[in-house]
């Protein structure tokens, strides 16, 4: 029987963060993960994260994973992969399947950071090949380099549905629609907008009526539903697709905790069956902790802080730090966590209908219902101002805890004010030098550099562009509206790709000047 001071189950963001904090304080740590690669979901996350500098903001998920792994490795954490913890038994003993044997390990403490699994919803045809989870689609694309399908319908407009839809577009798939039973887009407006401007239509208050196909998906029919979620006759719409992707939420994989006798609760706000834990992840069984999605579905950023808290807790549990030190450190993490749990999408606001921003501005209803801010709504947000010459236009219209834009500008021309969730605005008295750092830094791809009047009847719009192949200078095509419709002719003035932009290319297009505040994407003309 091998014994460790800390056994961590799951090498995702929370598990690795816990391992790092525990190892830093001198504990002997092992992390088991059933996958062949560590990092959990981080390695599928090719988009830039929201948050503040301290929370890895504007860093892409997989990079965060690499950083965590390096740090854990440097601290001597043992990360054992292809190691399935098959059971958590009395006395904090785990059975781990490694290779073709069962290994027994005991932990003085155990941290369960097993994450979550994807939910499914049922409709006739849901078991046909071609109906897949959004997470599975992400794995296929981002880990294995395989297109999940050619024509895809996405069910679910939460952040997962939106982010994966965008990634599907990046992978060259056609996303025919994003469908959600709720009347409003569930995820961040900026995520919705970057999909909408590529021309993907949103169908809110809709659900799948059935999926057609004999051996595999060949089509899908959706219909509108009323406020009691009952279908409205005559509202059917049919799409020919080969894939239906479901992004309808996650369920904590809390089975090990239940097996170990930890007190559990069924909490819909946390995503399902979760352990009863205190604010630092301590379960009802002494020495067993839970961190990350397993104790309540949230973001990777909060999972990492929860992991850190558990790491500090086990250090105190085993006498490596004293109670006072623990509390001081936990309080600091709690503050971090609290700052992440702010804004319109904070756990406390889940399910609430928010009509005004913190600044008192009416929320864009078009954004909530169709996925993009309408032309007549955009002007009311503080990031959208007009100036002579090139200047940033920040189409950030919801209060979310994110502020990389503030630090991105070398001239400090952008500010989110006193609160990380406030909407960013452009300072009047500072000159924009057209460097593009703000455009590349915005994880929501919501910042544009616009010169509204170049003096020759044209305007230029610089936008973030993350598709291949990259258009070339001189390419002709169309300016697309926020809705993704061709609204004008456009010519590519330049495409900038520098290291500091971290794979976000800056495409500048020239459009007729009346479209300066309307054209937000470029589509190359078909030859």
């Amino acid at each position, binding site marked *: 029987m091998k014994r460790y001071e800390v056994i961590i189950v799951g090498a995702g963001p929370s598990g690795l963060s816990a391992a790092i904090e525990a190892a830093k304080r001198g504990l002997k740590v092992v992390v088991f993960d059933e996958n062949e690669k560590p990092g959990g979901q981080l390695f599928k996350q090719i988009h830039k994260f929201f948050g503040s500098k301290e929370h890895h903001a504007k860093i892409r998920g997989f990079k965060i994973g690499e950083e965590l792994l390096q740090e854990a490795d440097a601290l001597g954490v043992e990360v054992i992969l292809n190691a399935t913890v098959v*059971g958590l*038994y009395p006395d904090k003993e*785990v059975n781990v399947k490694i290779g073709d044997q069962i290994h*027994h390990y005991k932990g003085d403490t155990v941290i369960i950071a097993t994450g979550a699994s994807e939910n499914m919803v049922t409709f006739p045809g849901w078991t046909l090949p071609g109906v897949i989870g959004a997470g599975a689609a992400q794995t296929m694309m981002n880990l294995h380099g395989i297109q999940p399908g050619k024509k895809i319908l996405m069910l679910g407009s939460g952040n997962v549905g939106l982010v994966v839809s965008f990634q599907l577009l990046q992978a060259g798939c056609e996303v025919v629609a994003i469908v959600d039973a709720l009347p409003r887009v569930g995820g961040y407006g900026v995520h919705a907008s970057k999909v909408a401007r590529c021309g993907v239509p949103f169908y809110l208050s809709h659900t799948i009526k059935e999926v057609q196909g004999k051996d595999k998906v060949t089509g899908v029919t959706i219909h509108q539903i009323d406020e009691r979620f009952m279908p409205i006759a005559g509202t059917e719409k049919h799409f020919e697709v080969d894939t239906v992707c479901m992004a309808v939420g996650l369920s904590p994989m809390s089975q090990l905790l*239940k*097996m*170990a*006798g930890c007190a*559990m609760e069924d909490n819909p706000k946390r995503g399902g069956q979760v352990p009863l834990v205190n604010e630092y992840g301590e379960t009802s069984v002494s020495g067993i902790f839970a961190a990350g999605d397993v104790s309540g579905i949230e973001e990777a950023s909060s999972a990492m802080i929860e992991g850190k808290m558990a790491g500090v807790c086990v250090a105190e549990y085993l006498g490596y730090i004293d109670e006072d030190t623990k509390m001081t450190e936990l309080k600091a993490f709690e503050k971090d966590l609290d700052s992440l749990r702010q804004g319109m999408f904070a756990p406390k606001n889940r399910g609430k209908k928010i009509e005004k921003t913190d600044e008192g501005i009416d929320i864009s209803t078009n954004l909530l219902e169709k996925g993009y801010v309408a032309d007549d709504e955009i002007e009311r947000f503080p990031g959208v101002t007009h100036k002579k010459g090139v200047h940033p236009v920040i189409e950030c219209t919801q209060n979310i805890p994110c502020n990389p834009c503030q630090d991105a500008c070398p001239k400090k021309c952008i500010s989110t004010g006193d609160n990380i969730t406030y909407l960013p605005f452009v300072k009047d008295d500072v000159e924009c030098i057209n460097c593009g750092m703000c455009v590349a830094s915005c994880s929501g791809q919501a910042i544009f550099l616009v010169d509204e009047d170049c003096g020759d009847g044209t305007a230029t719009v610089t936008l973030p562009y993350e598709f291949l192949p990259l258009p070339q200078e001189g390419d002709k095509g169309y300016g697309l509206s926020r809705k993704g419709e061709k609204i004008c002719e456009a010519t590519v003035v330049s495409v900038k790709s520098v290291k500091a932009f971290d794979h976000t290319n800056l495409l500048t297009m020239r459009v007729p000047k009346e479209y300066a505040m309307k054209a937000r994407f470029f589509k190359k003309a078909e030859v």
Partner: protein
Amino acid sequence: MEAKNSADVIVIGAGIIGCAISYYLRKRGKNVIVLEGSDNIGNGGSSRNGGGVRQSGRDPRELPLAMYGIKNLWPGLSEELGVNCEYHKEGNLRLGKTPEHLKILQGLTDRAVACGLDVKMIDAAEVKKINPHLSDEVIGASWCPTDGHANPLVTTLAFYKKAREMGVRFITGEKVERLRKVKGRLREVYTKDNVYEGEYVVVAAGYESRDILATVGVDVPMHKELVECLVTEAEPHMFNQMLGTAEADFYGHQSDHGSFVFGGMSGLELNNKNTGPKNSPSNAAITAPCICRGIMKYFPALEDAKIVRTWAGYLDICQDGVPVLGFVDEVPGLVVACAFSGHGFGIGPAVGEQMAMLICEGKTSVDISGLQYGRFKAKI
């Protein structure tokens, strides 16, 4: 006392025994209320056992019940209850690999034959003929062709379903705290918030029976042991016999579904502890691996079968290894049916019918005289 909490008989425990008793009582026209302490019907051994419907290997005192049930009740049970209980009467092989094993098997066989059971010793060739999938190391077995197995989960729920349909009132999550005698006869059953009243009270609550019976001064000498079972994914059909071994390394069968259900022990059962969740005792880390090794010694062909689940359950083991059944002279109105010692499932229907008969007609048709309370005496 509200009338709605009264019945002819109050049955405590909704396992196979309580459900079967309530069904056969209802069939005889009695009004019955069944009180189950956990949230689930059949939460104890009834849903955790290996599904054996055996006569061989049984103590002569309970063998008549086993033989009676297999002859009269099991064959028509699925039809009677309207649910397929997956009963197979295709024999039990108790396997041996060494001369010592054969000696143990011979002893069991001789005792059963003396009670009139059709069981015999067979050699390796005959074993192979009955079950060609066994290891070549098996040198002999005892063979009882009328033994078999059924699905314990479904059988228990089938009794419940049918009894409920016929009007038996089942109340789950209703843990009995004490019994109460009124004017010299047991009449009342107290739970945290309710009182139930009946002409008869049947205590069929597994090991919990001990605490319940203690409230009227009755003590069944029993203890509990935490044992485990496991189940594989569905495999192609291989055989229908019930299997066991001379050394009890494992026991089990292949279900209609195709999965193999095997039970067994690590040897530490007396002291296995339970730190598991409510309603579901925990497994020990070393038991399932031990059962697997036991199985593979006899069934090398199963080494690639995938285990999908393991579980643990308590045996309510009587001091002398057989149940306590029937009236208790000192407490009129009380009927006891507990301490089945890990082999109650197979005799469940027979116990149910006979206890109903006892309550309604005052006597059983099968001799249960060796199973009565009051048989326990000091050894000298």
